[in-house]
């Protein structure tokens, strides 16, 4: 009786998932395995994939670099917040969250305004006599956009892990002869590993599939897999190839989260996607 009821409760969600996730996924799968012109079954799309491997590699590289930079920038911040008074922690936590309250598109466009050739930074550089330099449409600008947008996703899980480390473990390490650097290396860092992996996943997954950041801040040589998929679908070039790339991207994300979850231990650190 009770069991039947709980099944009933989950029916709306199951219907939703079937209608808007499972069926579209099947459609994507269908497109991936059919010819764009004839609609007949074919593996040509998968064969053509090879051409786009460099783009895929570039996407992964940019995302990993961004995740690494986020970790380097975010860890000290998370550590700092975790060691404030409870009231201060709440305030700082809110400040980290604050940019996320603003539209992602708007924030990226703001960087365009800052970085473009006639933008604020270049105008300033000209004014102080250095002269204009190429800022926008560079790989650096794309990475900057990613780091800027996804940094909170790194800080929050790191903070959540660090704040839970029992202070007596730190005292125990000091008691056993560790100076503060050794205490960090031997106790704090290993215990924050779940947070690190969680943070990397939270940054990597949206970064690897983004297209907006690279379109607005990148140049012709910084095309990412997200851009490619968008172009293949929207400009009507080849939705079938786009479908294959989508599936590849999905597999990539699943594999990455799988690895990260395994490495980060299956405790809380686990990512909510």
């Amino acid at each position, binding site marked *: 009786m009770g069991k039947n009821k709980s099944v009933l409760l989950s029916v709306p969600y199951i219907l939703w998932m079937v209608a808007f996730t499972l069926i579209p996924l099947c459609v994507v799968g269908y497109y991936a395995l059919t010819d764009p012109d004839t609609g007949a079954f074919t593996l040509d799309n998968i064969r053509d994939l090879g051409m786009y491997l460099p783009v895929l590699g570039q996407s992964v590289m940019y995302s990993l670099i961004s995740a690494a930079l986020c970790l380097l920038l975010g860890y000290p911040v998370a550590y700092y917040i975790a060691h404030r008074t409870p009231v201060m922690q709440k305030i700082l936590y809110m400040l980290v969250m604050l940019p996320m309250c603003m539209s992602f598109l708007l924030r990226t466009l703001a960087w365009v305004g800052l970085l473009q050739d006639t933008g604020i930074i270049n105008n300033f550089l000209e004014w102080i006599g250095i002269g204009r330099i190429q800022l926008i449409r560079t790989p650096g600008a794309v990475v900057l956009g990613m780091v800027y947008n996804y940094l909170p996703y790194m800080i929050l899980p790191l903070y959540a892990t660090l704040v839970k480390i029992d202070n007596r473990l730190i005292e125990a*390490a000091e008691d056993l002869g560790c100076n503060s650097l050794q205490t960090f290396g031997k106790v704090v860092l290993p215990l924050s590993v779940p947070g690190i992996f969680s943070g990397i996943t939270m940054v990597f997954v949206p970064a690897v599939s983004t297209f907006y950041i690279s379109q607005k801040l990148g140049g012709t040589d910084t095309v990412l897999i997200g851009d490619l998929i968008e172009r293949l679908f929207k400009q009507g070039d080849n939705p079938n190839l786009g479908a294959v790339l989508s599936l590849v991207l999905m597999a990539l994300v699943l594999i990455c989260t799988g690895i990260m979850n395994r490495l980060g231990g299956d405790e809380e650190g686990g990512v909510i996607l």
Partner: protein
Amino acid sequence: MSKELIRLRDLTMEFDGERILDGINLYINDHEFLTLLGPSGCGKTTTLRIIGGFLTPTAGTVIFDGECINEVPPYKRQINTVFQRYALFPHLNVFDNIAFGLRVAKKPKEEIEQRVNHMLEVVSLKGYGHRNVSSLSGGQQQRVAIARALVNEPKVLLLDEPLGALDLRLRKDMQNELKRIQQATGITFVYVTHDQEEALSMSDTVVVMDKGRIQQIGKPEDIYNEPKNAFVADFIGESNILDGIMLADYKVKFFGRTFTCVDAGFEPNEPVDVVIRPEDIDIVDPKEGHLVGTVTGITFKGLNYDIIVEFKGFKWLIQTTDFHPVGAEIGIRLNPEDIHIMQKSEYSGMFGDYSSYSAEYDELTEDAGDGEE
């Protein structure tokens, strides 16, 4: 007597203007087992944390082996701590937890192996080296924590209520174990507990603390037999504490009767607190008694009965192996050595009255009891 190792001089500690420690003066000898005993909030853990280096005193000095170590950080002190609830490293197994200090000290690999394995034997955990610490029972975790501290061969081991989380049976075993380890290694133990029985059975010296001050320092027997004030008398064991007047040396008057006692050195007619331990009281026939009272309550305790006896409106706790029903009239006799005299203190009148034991009697409970919780 072995030489002095640690001295605390006029130690004062304040948190947010609240005085936690108020002028602690104490010395700890080498090879000694010293216990800081007191109720929660008495400052015993704070004192321990100051010795460990985790807190810097607001005023006063900590002297270790003749040198002031106020400014020396914990990792440079020849002191190790067994923390309350163990604080084992969850990311390391048993062996690596114990080896932690030796690895930090960059000892050679073979030496680490040999010393850790030896320690595992000392704490009866041979073969547990590769176990995950979270898979161990409370008692086993406790022993890992002790091994992790002892393996570094510190001059002093600080133990902060190390047995607090264990059940009674395990506590007793671990008490014996700790005492054995202390005697075998000769390391100075500074032990914090609120359990008076634990303190009395393990220590060479007991320091009774309350409200940030030391109430009494002494050997367990002295603390029990010659408590300095009503707080100590009440905290260590059970005590009936009465108002008395010291008429002259060896003569004390209470309940309108003069008794012979073994104490001297008070002013003539000085008001004093009189302590009578429940187990020292002899029950006799009412006709032969110094005092005659009525039994108002009885509780079976296993080894003995705790009976509450009313004498002229004041209730005493008496421990006896004989059964006396409620309502029975009994007499008691007090030998001179059963009567302990204490000077009046700020604690006078706060302890040592057993009226609250009885449900139907509440006239005296007003001033009794408040100080107890």
